[in-house]
């Protein structure tokens, strides 16, 4: 497993990724576009504008809403510019004016001077803050690339790991043929959302394509139909395919849930020994369905065993 990378988020990246969705328009301060956003959140600098900088959240994207804008206006041009100047000097990454308010020319000049990008957006402040928070959450999500293909089996996102040549692609093809959809072939990008959910996707370059030994690169939606692909999926189960002879111990009962750790999250893990003649696609399918049962609270192996023990305890007539 690779080391998870802590993403570096610059104003430029934030702008390029979300300008359209957040309706952002650069007004001034373009020279500071490579400023780093150090915290993935949005802050309304009301207190700072009023003069209080203790605990000021300068690491975040700053949003000037209707309230702040009205407050600045009430101060008069000169004082307002002074306050904004102070804000721009305090190492903030960028400043966004919501409700399509345009910062006065003097503020724009200062933004250029202090190299802090000034944006405006047509969105109302609340909607902008919500949308920008979600967008930043995505940008800041820790991510990692795992060697393995990912398939969505009836809503269960399954990462299929295994050494090169063990038959991952063949298993994936068998699953696609059964009507399940491909998320990623061979390398899966996984990111941790809100510290509780892992989401797998493929790199944009290789998306919707597979490399199969002997066939070369195939276009999955062209061969299997558009339902055979999906851009991303929550990860629920890890399946590792292993050569039969390399597996020291095969779990024969499945009472003890094995786990596999990705970005600090523990995922249910199943190891499947591979041997010619075994229908691996089918086995992965059943593993996913069993996982689905478990997510509904039914642990077949455990329940079976409890029933058996109870039966043995009851003396036979």
């Amino acid at each position, binding site marked *: 497993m690779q080391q998870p990378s802590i993403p570096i988020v610059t104003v430029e990246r934030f702008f390029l990724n979300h300008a359209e969705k957040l309706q952002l328009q650069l007004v001034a301060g373009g020279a500071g576009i490579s400023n780093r956003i150090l915290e993935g959140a949005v802050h309304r600098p009301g207190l700072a504008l009023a003069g209080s900088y203790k605990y000021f959240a300068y690491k975040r994207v700053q949003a000037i809403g209707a309230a702040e804008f009205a407050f600045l206006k009430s101060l008069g041009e000169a004082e307002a510019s002074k306050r904004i100047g102070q804000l721009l000097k305090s190492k903030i990454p960028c400043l966004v004016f919501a409700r399509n308010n345009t910062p006065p020319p003097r503020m724009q000049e200062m933004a250029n001077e202090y190299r802090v990008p000034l944006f405006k957006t047509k969105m109302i402040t609340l909607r902008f803050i919500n949308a920008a928070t979600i967008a930043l959450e995505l940008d800041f999500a820790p991510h990692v690339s795992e060697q393995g293909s990912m398939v969505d089996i009836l809503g269960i996102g399954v990462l299929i790991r295994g050494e090169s040549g063990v038959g991952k692609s063949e298993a994936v093809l068998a699953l696609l043929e059964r009507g399940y959809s491909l998320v990623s072939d061979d390398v899966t990008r996984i990111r941790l959302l809100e510290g509780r959910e892992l989401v797998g996707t493929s790199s944009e370059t290789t998306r919707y394509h597979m490399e199969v030994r002997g066939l070369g690169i195939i276009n999955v939606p062209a061969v299997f139909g558009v339902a055979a692909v999906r851009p991303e999926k929550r990860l629920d189960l890890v399946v590792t395919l292993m050569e039969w002879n390399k597996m020291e*111990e095969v779990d024969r*009962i499945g*009472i003890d849930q094995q786990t596999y750790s990705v970005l600090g999250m523990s995922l249910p893990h199943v190891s499947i020994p591979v041997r010619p003649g075994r229908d691996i696609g089918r086995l992965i399918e059943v593993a996913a369905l069993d996982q689905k049962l478990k997510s509904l609270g039914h642990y077949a*192996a455990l329940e079976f065993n409890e029933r058996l023990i109870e039966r043995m305890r009851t003396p036979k007539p």
Partner: protein
Amino acid sequence: MLEHGKTENNAPATTVTREITVVNQLGIHARPAAAFVKLANKFQSDITIEKDGERINGKSIMGLLMLGAAQGSKLTVIANGRDAEAAVHEIEELFARKFDEN
């Protein structure tokens, strides 16, 4: 039952039969069954378990579970093959160790 002349390591195939009592508290549930099958699979000999007239293959987990062998049950272990003696010996030990359950 004895098969002669089919050996590679000169040990003749034999049949060893032994009666073993289940001593662990919970009886043969899933974990002991898995431990048993794992051990049985180490041997080349065929291993058969008999309980109350029912015979099952000692290398089958579902078979063992089907027996429902509670604490105190008496099982007959029959091993047939070149390593039959060793197999029965180790199986006996596994029962005595209570399948290594805490």
